């Protein structure tokens, strides 16, 4: 079934897009990542213009996060205080990101920067997660209890930041500046890469801050919900690249997928789930790295003036 996308200016197979949304939604429900790191590259690969892919996948993540946040808040899995601080940082970050996006677009280096960001961040996080989850799986196989996730609860640079707030859900007593900065960085990435930043937020909260694992996924989704909503607005005001039909198709798949994923994850052991996510993240990173070094199909690219 072919459908014409009014902003992207091409017709796509609607079922393929719904299916793509479904897979991404399942990942989102299982791991608390928005799944933008999969949607954006796959859409670009399908022929959707990069700007439209980035903007529309942000819109899609908003919808996917809603159902996740609702599910987690029912289980008290969202630290709203931490979430609000992250969102504040994220809002500032997405506006700054919008300016950087424009600058890079002008110099023509936006594609390279996006690709490099993907390779470096996904590679780094994927490797870290893979190492940690493999250790955990090995330990359970030998009959030992899985080693506790090694986090320093007290990091000197975080403790050095002025002013401390109590985050009850997260079980932390730290300066709000630390999550504010983290929120800012993920906001930047959301605009530049069309991701919700979950794949940065989750490990950062877990390993860097030592946030209690119970609220990590929910809080990350909460932050993603607001930051992607802001990003949708920034993109529709600056680049006019949000395609409602494309986002709608993705949403049909991803909201259903998210529900399936969140019930599926309860049947899988957490360390195995983390290993799966690590594998997916690493695959995307490797594919992106190859894309940078292989001779591209199109040496020439065109930009409207």
């Amino acid at each position: 079934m072919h459908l014409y996308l009014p902003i992207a200016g091409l017709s796509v197979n609607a079922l393929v897009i719904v299916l793509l949304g479904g897979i991404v939604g399942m990942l989102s429900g299982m791991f608390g990542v928005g799944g933008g790191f999969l949607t954006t590259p796959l859409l670009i690969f399908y022929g959707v213009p990069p700007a439209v892919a980035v903007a529309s996948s942000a819109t899609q993540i908003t919808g996917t996060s809603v159902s996740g946040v609702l599910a987690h808040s029912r289980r008290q899995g969202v630290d709203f205080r931490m979430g609000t601080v992250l969102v504040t940082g994220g809002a500032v970050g997405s506006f700054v990101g919008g300016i950087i996006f424009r600058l890079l677009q002008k110099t023509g280096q936006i594609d390279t920067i996006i690709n490099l960001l993907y390779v470096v961040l996904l590679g780094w996080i994927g490797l870290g997660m893979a190492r940690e989850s493999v250790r955990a799986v090995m330990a359970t196989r030998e009959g030992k209890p899985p080693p506790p996730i090694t986090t320093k609860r007290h990091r000197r640079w975080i403790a050095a930041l002025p002013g401390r707030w109590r985050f009850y859900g997260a079980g932390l007593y730290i300066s709000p500046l630390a999550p504010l900065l983290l929120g800012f960085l993920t906001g930047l990435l959301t605009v530049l890469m069309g991701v919700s930043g979950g794949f940065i937020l989750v490990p950062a909260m877990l390993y860097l801050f030592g946030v209690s694992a119970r609220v990590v996924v929910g809080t990350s989704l909460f932050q993603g919900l607001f930051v992607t909503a802001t990003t949708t607005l920034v993109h529709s005001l600056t680049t006019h690249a949000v395609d409602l039909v494309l986002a709608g198709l993705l949403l049909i798949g991803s909201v259903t997928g998210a529900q399936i994923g969140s019930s599926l994850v309860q049947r899988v052991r957490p360390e195995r789930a983390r290993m799966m996510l690590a594998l997916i993240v690493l695959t995307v990173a490797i594919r992106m790295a190859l894309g940078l070094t292989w001779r591209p199909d199109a040496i020439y690219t065109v930009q409207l003036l």
Partner: protein
Amino acid sequence: MSARDNMRVMACGTVSKCACPRTSPKKKLLAVVAALPMLLGASEPKLVPDVSDTQIDIAYSFTGANLLLFGAILYPGGRTPSADTDVAVVIKGPAEPLLVREKAKIAGIWVNHASERFRSVPSFYAVATSRPLDKLVSARTAAIYEIGIDNLLLSPANGSSAGEQARFETGLVNLKRQSGLYAEHVGAVSVREGVLYRALVPIPARVPVGQYTAETYLIRNGHIVAAATREIDIGKSGFERFVAQAAEHFPLLYGLAAILISLLMGLVAAIGFGRVRR
């Protein structure tokens, strides 16, 4: 544009040849009218072109279209049609300024490093001919009328060396060819008994919107003896038009609507599945 202007100049030329010099406008007109039958009798054949659609609507199910261009060749004075009549049809989309970037391998990765501006690049170009281009008209004529992809005037604007400009032009044209926006359909025009012609030109799904022109050229012995132009309007229609215009003219409302829709869909799914599970 240049091709059409040339045509106009030519048409004026044939008329002014017979008009008497230095007479009052009224007399001049009379003279032209009086000379008209004779003029037609002496002149080359005339083209009467038509297209299947002067308006192509891009709606939700648009996967491309086939444009049928057809028409008749009128021979003045009941002259018998000649067999060696050829027709070329050129369809052009609105011209736009473009920046073409070239990638190069720097420090192991491929990055954009050089660029070239082009002032007017047709967003779409298709030519259909009854015979291979090189057997149709001379290279000079083909260049003047922009018949054939290699004869397009893209007007590079950087002032770089000719070799460099050619390199970028080739890159740009190849890119357009691959996406189906530039195409040559050799043999796609059939001329029946030298009187009727028809050409079927496919319009791809990724066609840019705007005002298109279809130029038809009648060719005999390597010379263009008649030309005619029809306009074709390609635009989004219905819901697609509404969405595209809303995104352009009401960005704030559009963005808010997008957020609201995604929030609602997320909510509906969460509530729906919650019920199912219970």
